């Protein structure tokens, strides 16, 4: 159904669509990150596509890939009833230079979603009016949903109480509790 949308984008931006596929009717295009905002504007304003709604915008961390992050936007056309998933790959393997143009001027809903994406992954949305952390506190260091963020690293805002035997009060020691929550990935060991 929305395969025609993919064709439209390919025709309008030759060379900017790096790849496209359709899995169970979900059409996906992977685009050049420098053309991210222009393609989004075309998809929103062209009457044949008319993607009025930005359903979701997030990112995925593939630490073994280069570029490392995949920014994912889900678009939906309220008037036409079709959907499109748009991806762009950004970022060096060390997590730097993860920059992509903001689509906040097109969809207001992108404001908080881009802030969340920045907070969790450290993707910089250029042109965003107020790119601050939204879930974590300003004092927080690092981006917790990056795969190289240590699974057991916490950054308490206030010091924990200094009472004897507090480790024996819940939550238990590091060897107790849910081990799967603290699993370490192979690539993290390699760095050490």
């Amino acid at each position: 159904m929305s395969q025609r949308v993919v064709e439209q984008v390919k025709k309008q931006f030759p060379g900017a669509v790096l790849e496209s596929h359709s899995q169970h009717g979900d059409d996906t295009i992977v685009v050049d990150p420098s053309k991210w905002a222009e393609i989004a504007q075309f998809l929103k304003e062209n009457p044949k596509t008319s993607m009025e709604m930005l359903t979701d915008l997030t990112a995925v961390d593939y630490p073994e890939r280069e570029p490392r992050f995949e920014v994912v936007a889900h678009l939906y056309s309220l008037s036409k009833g079709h959907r499109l998933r748009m991806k762009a790959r950004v970022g060096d393997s060390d997590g730097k230079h993860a920059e992509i143009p903001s689509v906040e001027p097109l969809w207001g809903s992108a404001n908080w979603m881009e802030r969340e994406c920045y907070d969790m992954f450290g993707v910089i949305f250029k042109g965003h009016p107020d790119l601050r952390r939204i879930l974590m506190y300003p004092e927080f260091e690092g981006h917790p949903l990056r795969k190289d963020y240590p699974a057991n690293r916490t950054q308490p805002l206030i010091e924990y109480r200094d009472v004897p035997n507090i480790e024996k009060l819940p939550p238990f020691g590091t060897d107790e509790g849910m081990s799967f929550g603290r699993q370490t990935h192979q690539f993290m060991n390699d760095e050490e």
Partner: protein
Amino acid sequence: MGELKGTETRIIEPSEQGFATTRFQDLLHWAQKYSLFMYPFVTACCGMEFMAVTSPRYDVSRFGAEAPRFSPRQADLLWVVGTISQRQAPILRRIWEQMAEPKWVMAFGTCASCGGFYDNYTTVPGLDKIIPCDVYIPGCPPRPEAVLDGLLLLQDKIARGDRTPAIVKPRTDPATSQDHGLVQLRKNRESMV
């Protein structure tokens, strides 16, 4: 009534006249345990069970703990209901500091007690890392019966004048115990019939 634990416990009949003796501290603790003004610090889904406990079906007011005060300065009992994130930890600490002595803290549910399954960067692994806690109520969320049991534990603790961190002391079974006030009251009614 039987709550006034002394060397001897006996129910004063309505027809009787006289006086009872007890220690002042016991009387004070007896009054405190039935006049808990609560501050609900409700952050998560446990709040639904908290509403069930406070609403008429389970009715926490039977235990003298029904009056919520949304200023910590007027509250005795801090209910920490739900997950405490690292971002909320300073707020919780400050509310606890604003409460006047004597004050008690209940950890309602697994998340407040130990962080629950949130073993990650964002959740405080148990409120006792921040403030001292008197009673932990397990459950995800705990059933209202469990909450009332926790409240009774706290009342036992208050009656003992115990201010140590949460360690559950052995309790007597009210159904078999001979010196429990409620049981005596029932026996007394039966004997009257």
